[in-house]
């Protein structure tokens, strides 16, 4: 649902001039520390409850993971990844949800005006009134987040609890977390928190610890501390996420050229008629002596 009180920074399929860009509001951010997550799933339950989502039947696939992947009624999922490492087993648990990218691929791909919006504070939200359920956002998103409701076809995902944050509350998942591995604040504060934690991890022998805040999408509203930051794929995270080049090409190059080409063709046909007129008898007279009257 869209929060009317928040001004919109970017809107899907808008031509131009629709935003004032006058307000400067700090970007909000969720901080996730995968190294202190215990996989209790309180955040999953909190998200379901706060958003009045339907119960989704869980599927046992051999791990503690609730579902194989996100769902239109399950916006927040703890991913359990077990790996052999350094003579033992490591459990990499990561809270998976919409990353609220600074340059959202979903918004770039969406063809419905105003169906996907980015508020001034960076939250990326879906407006179901405008959503046509076409699925383009799925191709635009580098994190495979958009999911579609089975009967209405609308896209649904984590809203960063925009209805809570716009009245000064923290997101439901953050509130429910018992270990403090989830925090909420401004992007600058969360990045500072993350960098501090990364330094601490490095001191504890995790030389490749890193804060996952990929610049390919302009940075993300959700920043994640990874103990094995050199292998984001171990956490089901893409190494270099960005809005697909072909999507950018299609929207920013091919489309305007196409509009010009089609208008050009119509103008061209009209211009041709004014300049050359109709196809007539003159040419035929050169080779045909007896053109009939009718």
């Amino acid at each position, binding site marked *: 649902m869209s929060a009317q009180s928040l001004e919109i920074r970017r809107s899907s*399929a*808008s*031509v131009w001039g629709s935003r004032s860009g006058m307000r400067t509001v700090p970007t909000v951010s969720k901080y996730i520390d995968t190294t202190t997550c215990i996989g209790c799933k309180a955040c999953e339950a909190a998200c379901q409850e706060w958003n009045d989502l339907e119960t989704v039947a869980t599927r046992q696939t051999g791990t503690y993971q609730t579902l194989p992947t996100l769902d239109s009624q399950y916006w927040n999922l703890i991913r359990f990844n077990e790996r052999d490492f350094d003579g033992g087993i490591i459990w990499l648990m990561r809270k998976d949800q919409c990353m609220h990218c600074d340059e959202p691929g979903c918004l770039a791909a969406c*063809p*419905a*005006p105003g169906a996907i919006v980015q508020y001034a504070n960076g939250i990326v939200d879906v407006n179901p009134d*405008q959503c*046509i*359920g*076409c*699925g*383009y956002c*799925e*191709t635009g998103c580098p994190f495979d987040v958009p999911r579609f409701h089975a009967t209405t076809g609308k896209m649904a995902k984590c809203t960063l609890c925009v209805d809570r944050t716009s009245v000064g509350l923290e997101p439901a998942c953050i509130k429910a977390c018992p270990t403090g591995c989830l925090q909420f604040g401004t992007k600058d504060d969360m990045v500072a928190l993350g960098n501090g934690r990364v330094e601490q991890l490095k001191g504890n022998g995790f030389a490749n610890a890193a804060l996952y805040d990929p610049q390919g999408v302009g940075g993300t509203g959700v920043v994640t501390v990874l103990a094995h930051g050199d292998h984001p794929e171990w956490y089901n995270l893409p190494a270099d996420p960005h809005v*697909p080049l*072909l*999507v950018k*090409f*299609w929207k920013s190059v*091919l*489309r305007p*050229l*196409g*509009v010009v*080409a*089609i208008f*050009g*063709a*119509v103008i*061209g*046909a009209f211009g*041709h*008629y004014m300049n*050359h*007129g*109709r*196809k*007539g*008898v*003159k*040419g*035929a007279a*050169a*080779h*045909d*002596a*007896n*053109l*009939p*009257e*009718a």
Partner: protein
Amino acid sequence: MSTVASRPADPAVRVAREKEDVLVGDEIVRHRIISRAIHWTVAVTFFVSLLTGMPIWTPVFGWMASLFGGLSVCRVLHPWAGVVFSLASVFMFFDWAADMRFDPHEKKGWWGPRLFHYLRWEFEDVETGKYNGGQKFYFWTAGLGSLGLLLSGLIIWFPRAFPALVRELSFVIHDLTFILFAVALVFHIYLATSAEPGTFRSMTRGTVTRKWARLHHPRWYREVTGEDTRRS
């Protein structure tokens, strides 16, 4: 019961129900009824696909969505109209392909210098048969185009069944194909109406005048009437 021998009210139209390339009175039947029906099915489904697709393609054409009741309606209607268009195009392809083979003298340049020569109304080729090189060229590109639109369209319609790169390429192919098709269509309609009077009726009534045939498609005229029109 009347004893006066009754004659068909519009002989050319009645003949056009079954046959084409025949002379009936002062008219030559150019397209029989099934060809016309298929053509109009293709045309209407193409326009529905076009007008439902363009508002999805760009908000610049968002106003077209109102023709159908909104963008959500367009999103549902577009793939179905596209499928019917593709099916009708298959029928059209097989109906017309035999007449669309390029003659040896037509092989060169119909998409380049020859096309512009023709568009300046500069001369008529006495060997032009039922369809000229430009029309044949349009037929083959439209055929390929409708196949491209179908395949890329199916991928866009069922994205989860395909990997990301295939989906991304489909958007580009669908767009490019539709743009080329739309540009060609503008000229197809223009040439079939304003630019060449006497043409549109060939697709509605199904017939053309002798003069039209002799002017635009001299070899076809010779084949149908048996007359020798070449200047000696």
